[in-house]
């Protein structure tokens, strides 16, 4: 389990130094206590939301690796399967709220893609809970931190239960 939540490592504007010991362990260690979670965050809402979470100093575990994409609709099943097979324990795809999508229908598209990917993961014998779709706006820093905490906890449970197998 995570003993103490560490301040978010990556913020684009405010360059804070990561508190070393735990972050490096999380990056290098392959223990279930330190899962690796790839987060695809859309440029217009969720990435700004993650930024806000960092700037506001909301506490959440250091397990997330944020990858910025222009739109959540850009994600394809291949990206998610790639992430999972190359070592990530979980994937979050996060976009704008449906009504607020910068590209009008990007979030809807992402929702469909996530459904397809979940079916594929089920067929391939993976745990579908390792993939999560979230709608986080630029003002919801608190929600981003909550999602990160909850998802990390869930992934830890799954990994311990499955003995590290996907």
């Amino acid at each position, binding site marked *: 389990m995570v003993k103490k939540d560490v301040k978010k490592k990556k913020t684009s504007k405010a360059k804070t130094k990561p508190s070393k010991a735990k972050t490096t362990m999380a990056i290098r260690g392959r223990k279930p206590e330190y899962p690796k979670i790839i987060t695809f965050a859309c440029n217009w809402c969720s990435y700004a939301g993650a930024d806000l979470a960092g700037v506001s100093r909301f506490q959440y575990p250091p397990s997330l690796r944020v990858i910025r994409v222009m739109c959540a609709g850009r994600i394809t099943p291949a990206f998610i399967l790639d992430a999972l097979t190359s070592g990530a324990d979980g994937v979050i795809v996060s976009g704008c709220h449906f009504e607020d999508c910068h590209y009008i229908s990007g979030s809807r598209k992402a929702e469909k893609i996530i459904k397809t990917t979940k079916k*594929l993961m*089920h067929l391939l014998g993976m745990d579908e809970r390792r993939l999560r779709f979230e709608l986080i706006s630029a003002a919801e820093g608190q929600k981003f931190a909550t999602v990160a905490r909850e998802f990390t906890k869930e992934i830890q449970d799954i990994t311990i239960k499955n003995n590290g197998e996907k």
Partner: protein
Amino acid sequence: MGKNSVEEIIKRTNAYLCIDCGECTGSCPVSRVNLNYSPRLNVEKMLVGFFDEIKNDDGIWSCLVCGLCSQRCPSDVNYNEFIRLTRREVRKSSDNLNYTHNRVLQRVMEIMASKGIQNRTQWIEKSLKVSKKGKYLYFTGCLPYFEVIFEYLDIHPLEEGRSAVKIMNKLGINPVIRNDEVCCGRDLLFNGDEEGFLKLAKANKKMIKESGAEKIIFTCPECLDTVKNIYPEFVGKANVELIHITQLVNEAIEKGKLELGASKDKKFTFQDPCALGRGLNVYDEPRNIIRSIEESELLPMERERENSLCCGPSSWISCTNYTKRIQRVRLNQAENTGAQKLVTACPKCYIHLSCALSGDDIDLKIKLKPITTLIAETMGVKKRKKEQDASSKYVKEKVKT
């Protein structure tokens, strides 16, 4: 590319017998739309020793592996083999493939190879009779994955699987369907990834051995071609009979075990899958089946049998506007016959041509129909949807009268 591998390629494919006649380029469907691509040129480059040109040119990736050139070649150069070996060598140094669907299909195959556990048999409903052990094995191929990945085209490839099991049940066969079956690996092999192919082939070999089956039935001709013609070279020969579903049904029809009633449509035309036709020499069986449907008419296409045109992209790479043009030509040929349905015997042809038909710039009346679904519908088996139920009653009435 090393010197030894070049010699190996030239020897194994008979490339040294090339008489530079140009028959291959003349018949190649890709050369017709993409003037930069020429099979003859590729063979010549290999013979003369311009490997770097082959390596840096993406021409080697635009081949459809349809086998039309090899069939017409007077010197018997095996161009499919040439492409396979060259791609293997080229891929060692550079990886500039143009994958379709962001490489998701290849990724799925790799996961299948590395991980034994799958949930691929959940589509089997209670109404379908399958057994745990038996003489007959049904090789579903990648149908469950196609069902998910090609959902956006509004097609249901798994319907073919269900229909195939229904047909087998009607013939008194309760097939074994294994959960540890994996993709046949043909696509990885023709992407130049021989390691990935070997993993899959070994897994399948083990699966076939464990199942103890004597006869394996396929719905996908590419799987059949791979298991029959390519597996022996890599993993040794399996002592089982391998047949396509059309061969099974044709045999039953000839023996009088199965009768096909009338369908909603009367006029059909048939698309020869490359692997089934040129690969395995099965031309007459599907045609006999369509002809034996009551009140049906089989209309010949402009190019058919040995000269049939490929459905477009292959091995899930290089889906370009060149292949779209080939598909458009093929669909227009089908439309010109005046048929209502274009019947296909390959799930991949079905997917590729459905994709071409769903385009905005195409306005054709012809619709596609997989042959297994057509057989299952016309043999009067109860159907799943309500609309189809009405048609089955109609079929039954027609059969009675």
